[in-house]
């Protein structure tokens, strides 16, 4: 008993906020961990009337010995369900966040009432209309992106009919926007193979005026082929930060047979940026039509869409001609708009190919090659990137993985401005040993020769980091990294952020309760 009080004192001696974080973690422990007691047994209610508590925690902590900076991020999510009612809570702590601010708060909370036909949410929520041309509110923790809406949302759904009505204010980079938005989105499935939908949104932006977006979408699914089309229009007050009204078109089709699939996409965005200027929050997120890569170096230079003026296409072919072989080919091209249907000045293009070969369950060999050309960066770089990925299976549970990523860059620009093209390369070599289900250990070496094109280069040329990943039971995953890695872009869904360099150690702990 005495020990218990000592433990409580220890808890209170800790920072109040850490105590709150820990409390969230303790709740599931003291509530029988995997908590699901049934009122049906105790009070004779229906089988569905039972409390369920679920929780998860994501912790990231890094300490840089060079800059002496410690960064701590923690997200604790908790939901309580009782019959048709559900409460979602999230407590976040960032010390500091990616913009240097230290904060912790209950960042997400809502109450939901739902059954198979309807859902009413009061509080924070995420939503997407169509492919995100008109509205997309979402969270991506890797990018520290969270533009959740705070308000009320109602959804009705039955027999192929779906209607969503919502109102609320979006979360900005630092705080919630003052400008409420109201929107509606509906969808009707006329037949098994055809669906039609429409969306409408209006918001009055402070110091700007009324912005309205509306549009429609259609999808058709036939044997071996399907189509999706979405058109949206934006009404803007004239003479402000975007001079005229805008529009966005997105088309896609899939053509496939067994063992082969071809996806074709088209985009046309004209003054279609829908960003609240007060906190620079983008409220729509249309498809950028550029490939999201599996490898670090390729993904570091992903295309960031320019919704003011761009038109583009993308084609991707996936095929498994033999049981052991799979192929992937991708081509994407984005340019400025020219006239009604033509492409103007190139903004970004990439051609990517990948071949994977499975050798008798003993090894898997993958080779890839990318050629990227972008006008988004200084020097209009052209990048060539071969990738080699080899997995050798030592036994049923043990394997060794070797990855080589090489990125050769050619730029027009350099600090001497002598008009000559300059070249350099970045390279990542990684070797990992993994044992199922225990964990893996990875050694990653990165090097750059970018210093060759710079007059002054005070930074590093080589980085080395060791990472230990451990599965702790079924519900916890620990990742510990020691060493150094360069700063670089992390991109997803056409949104990129710069991640700081690390020279020290980092711990990540993912827990589900």
């Amino acid at each position, binding site marked *: 008993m005495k020990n218990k009080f000592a433990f409580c004192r220890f808890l209170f001696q800790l920072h109040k906020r850490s105590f709150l974080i820990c409390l969230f973690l303790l709740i599931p422990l003291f509530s029988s961990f995997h908590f699901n007691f049934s009122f049906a047994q105790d009070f004779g209610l229906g089988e569905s009337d039972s409390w369920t508590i679920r929780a998860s925690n994501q912790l990231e902590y890094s300490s840089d010995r060079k800059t002496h900076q410690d960064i701590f991020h923690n997200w604790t999510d908790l939901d309580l369900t009782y019959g048709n009612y559900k409460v979602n809570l999230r407590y976040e702590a960032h010390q500091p966040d990616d913009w240097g601010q230290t904060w912790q708060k209950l960042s997400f909370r809502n109450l939901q009432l739902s059954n198979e036909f309807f859902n009413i949410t009061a509080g924070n929520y995420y939503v997407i209309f169509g492919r995100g041309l008109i509205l997309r509110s979402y969270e991506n923790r890797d990018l520290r992106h969270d533009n959740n809406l705070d308000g009320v949302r109602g959804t009705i759904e039955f027999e192929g009919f779906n209607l969503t009505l919502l109102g609320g204010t979006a979360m900005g980079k630092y705080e919630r926007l003052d400008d409420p938005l109201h929107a509606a989105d509906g969808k009707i499935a006329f037949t098994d193979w055809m669906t039609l939908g429409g969306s409408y949104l209006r918001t009055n932006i402070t110091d700007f005026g009324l912005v309205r977006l509306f549009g429609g979408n259609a999808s058709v699914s036939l044997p071996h082929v399907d189509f999706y089309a979405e058109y949206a229009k934006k009404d803007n007050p004239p003479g402000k930060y975007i001079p005229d009204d805008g529009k966005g078109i997105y088309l896609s089709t899939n053509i496939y047979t067994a063992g082969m699939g071809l996806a074709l996409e088209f985009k046309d965005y004209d003054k279609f940026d829908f960003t609240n200027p007060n906190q620079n929050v983008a409220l729509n997120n249309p498809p950028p039509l550029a490939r999201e890569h599996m490898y670090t170096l390729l993904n570091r230079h992903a295309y960031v869409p320019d919704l003011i003026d761009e038109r583009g296409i993308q084609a991707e072919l996936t095929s498994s001609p033999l049981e052991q072989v799979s192929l992937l080919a991708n081509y994407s091209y984005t340019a400025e708009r020219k006239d009604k249907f033509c492409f103007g000045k190139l903004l970004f293009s990439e051609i990517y190919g990948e071949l994977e070969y499975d050798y008798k369950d003993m090894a898997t060999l993958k080779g890839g090659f990318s050629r990227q050309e972008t006008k988004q960066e200084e020097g209009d770089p052209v990048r060539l990137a071969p990738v080699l990925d080899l997995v050798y299976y030592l036994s049923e549970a043990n394997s060794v993985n070797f990855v080589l990523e090489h990125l050769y860059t050619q730029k027009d620009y350099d600090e001497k401005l002598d008009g000559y093209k300059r070249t350099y390369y970045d390279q990542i070599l990684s070797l990992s040993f993994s044992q199922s289900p225990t964990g893996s250990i990875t050694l990653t070496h990165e090097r750059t020769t970018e210093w060759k094109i710079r007059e002054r280069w005070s930074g590093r040329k080589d980085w080395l980091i060791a990472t230990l990943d451990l599965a702790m039971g*079924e519900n916890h995953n620990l990742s510990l990294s020691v060493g150094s890695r360069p700063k670089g872009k992390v991109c997803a869904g056409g949104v990129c952020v710069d991640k700081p360099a690390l020279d020290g150690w980092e711990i990540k702990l993912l827990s589900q309760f």
Partner: protein
Amino acid sequence: MFAGSKFVRSLFSKVLFTFFITCLLVSYAQGAKKILKAPNFSAPNLNGKKVELNTLLQEGPVLISFWATHCKPCIKELNQLQKLYPDYKKKGFEILAVDVDGPRSVSRVKSKVKGLKWKFAVVFDTNRDIYRKYHVLGIPHTVLIDRGGNIRYTHTTYRSGDEKIIWKKVDQLFNEQKEASEEKEGKDSEK
């Protein structure tokens, strides 16, 4: 904000303490019997038709695998699971691959799935509603659910050989099912 300051000590205590609590939970989890119910959901499949988890569970156990087209280990895992899937499908087992690609990649999912010859059901979770419902923190993430709708196994990340553990767990579920039906038959014959 820097080393030696109260702030850093506070941070360090946070990390240590959270880690300590997590270790406690882990040890507790090892001995705890899971009775967590899998939240029901419905989501559109590749042809736009709604697939409901509870409907699939009427046929037998379901393995939910959260994946995305840009996730290398996710595709490796699903390729491995595909190899034995037809055998288990005959027994009533189902794999539900929940695609969490955003609008950027969602159009290419169907061609990818067809190209890789995956036979199991694939549904879209474009704005990650199911992902949040299951408190997924990273992909690949797999959840094995028994016929009664109870979560029996969860796993994040994929390492070569993890699929063997999944198949063992699935076999275990079928054995339990078999034992339960034999027990029931025995009781019925006694009566």
